[in-house]
């Protein structure tokens, strides 16, 4: 009798579990429109704020209840996920190559860069240093990173947008000041010898530096640096190098997915919202540099110390290759056996 009850109980449990698993995949709330924003790693807080406002506006303007889901991860990893089938409606990755990788995968129509204002750039950023309180190792410029005993934290350029921008800044800090390619290679090799950990994405590197206390200087996005310093309660400081890379995180609509899901109108409104004054203000408060000139001007660092964004010499990474094309930047630096791979084998063997 007991055995029979046991078997009956097991059968009920199995049936219930199967039904629950299947229903989770089949039953969806079809009442509103749902968008999936596939983003790079350190932009959680920004999108949380923007999404709140956009959903509000969209409902007021069109009466449609919108819900936006976020996916965050290393920029390169995210691009691969979308190509492999992640049903993102928009991509807000860290650099041109990753967004273009989605186009190469056939999911974005060619010419995506010109479909949104300002070459699809609602905001830009740069790479700065974060150091410990009091800057005990005296780090003020790129050359200080190669000094003996200075441990540098940066994410892995293979998977992370932050990683690629850091590498480009390191290389560029030599080239843009008139150095040769050999000098740049020697410098970057020396710096990478002093990288103790390569996290897969920006936020991981932040945790390693800020929470685990590893490293003397952290190369990261300007916005991530500000957040890190605020959270640290005075234990960390930002140092702005005099020259750095102009980090351009393009946004794009994933045409194939929005056509399939029927969310094209909502996705377009979402991306266009980023250029409105309200959104640009939100972008500025999250320490990204808005591309709207008047709003950026208002937040520029003034002589009296107010303002968020100091002036520094910002150069584009495409100046590091003769052709000025991103594909060549990718091939030269980050492809298999590119400069990063060569630097790593030299640094570690």
């Amino acid at each position, binding site marked *: 009798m007991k055995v029979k009850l046991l078997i009956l109980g097991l059968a009920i449990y199995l049936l219930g579990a199967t039904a629950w698993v299947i229903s989770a995949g089949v039953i969806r709330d079809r009442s509103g429109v749902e968008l999936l924003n596939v983003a790079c790693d350190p932009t959680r807080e920004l999108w949380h704020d923007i999404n709140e406002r956009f959903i509000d506006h969209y409902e007021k303007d069109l009466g449609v209840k919108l819900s936006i889901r976020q996916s965050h991860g290393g920029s*390169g990893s995210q691009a691969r996920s979308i190509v492999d089938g992640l049903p993102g409606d928009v991509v807000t990755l860290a650099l041109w190559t990753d967004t273009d990788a989605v186009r190469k995968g056939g999911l974005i129509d060619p010419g995506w860069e010109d479909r949104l204002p300002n070459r699809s750039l609602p905001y830009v950023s740069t790479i700065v240093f974060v150091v410990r309180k009091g800057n005990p190792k005296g780090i003020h410029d790129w050359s200080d990173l190669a000094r003996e005993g200075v441990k540098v934290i940066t994410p892995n350029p293979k998977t992370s947008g932050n990683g690629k921008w850091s590498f480009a800044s390191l290389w560029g800090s030599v080239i843009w000041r008139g150095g040769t390619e050999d000098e740049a290679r020697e410098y970057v090799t020396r710096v990478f010898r002093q990288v103790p950990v390569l996290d897969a994405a920006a936020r991981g590197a932040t945790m390693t530096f800020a929470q*685990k206390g590893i490293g003397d200087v952290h190369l990261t996005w300007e916005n991530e640096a500000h957040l890190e310093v605020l959270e640290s309660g005075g234990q960390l400081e930002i140092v702005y190098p005099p020259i750095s890379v102009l980090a351009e995180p393009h946004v794009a609509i994933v045409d194939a997915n929005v056509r399939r899901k029927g969310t094209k109108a909502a996705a377009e409104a979402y991306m266009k919202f980023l250029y409105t004054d309200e959104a640009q203000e939100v972008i500025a408060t999250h320490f990204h540099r808005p591309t709207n000139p008047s709003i950026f001007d208002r937040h520029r660092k003034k002589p009296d110390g107010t303002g968020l964004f100091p002036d520094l010499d910002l150069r584009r990474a495409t100046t590091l290759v003769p052709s000025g094309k991103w594909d060549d930047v990718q091939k030269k630096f980050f492809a298999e056996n590119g400069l990063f791979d060569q630097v790593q084998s030299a640094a570690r*063997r």
Partner: protein
Amino acid sequence: MSVGVSRRVLPGFSLTLGYVVFYLSALVLIPLIACVLKAASLGWDDFWSVVWTPRARAAYALTFGVSFVAAIVNSVLGLIVAWTLVRYDFPFRRLVDALVDVPLALPTAVAGLVYASLYVPNGWLGQFLVPIGIEGAYSRLGIVLVLIFTGFPFVVRTVQPVLAELDVETEEAAAILGATPGQTFRRVLLPALVPPVLTGFALAFARGLGEYGSVIFISSNIQFETEIAPVLIVSQLEAFAYREAAAIAVMLLAMSFTLLVVINLLERWSQRHA
């Protein structure tokens, strides 16, 4: 285990056999074949140039090296723990016995994160260990430590039943014949324990080879130093190099399979000579 007897006693043999074959094929063989086919699409020369790069060789050496060391440590530790659990009675013995299974139940990512937090310079253990030069996080030592954790239950669980079933009379006979406890252990008990320890070693070793979730949080993931083979495979995938990733996976599979066959043969040999 005689198949002939089962055939006569249990009904539904053909159906069961058919189901098992189907299940194994669907879950194990088909993905493996797909992986091999993907790698094969590279062509023989390309295949070798991809799987035998210095970076890949460093990754294989590291993966097999750390798994081996962790499995050896687990064999010794596991034998001691199994011995204690079977031969002695102490308060909370059952609780300790249950705790042995924790590494199997805990998500490996949690294990990796916890280990990393413990051994960093400002962690509970790290604050004492790092000043004396023991870096347990973001180093090869860290990978070994976490693999010891995840492989721990295997040797204990394979040795326990064998130890429990050993005849007390054999030991008593040895004592009567004048053997010291040390001699009894070395010449009577240990030979009987070698097969289960070897089985446990093989299991822990195999677990270590495939371990990804825990290692990725405690390793610094730096090429040539602390990049294990699974991380190299993921790195290739991230670069959209699917065939290259499949190639490295097939290489890893082949090497693991060979090693496991060798261990299996060792087991059979030790059983015959026990």
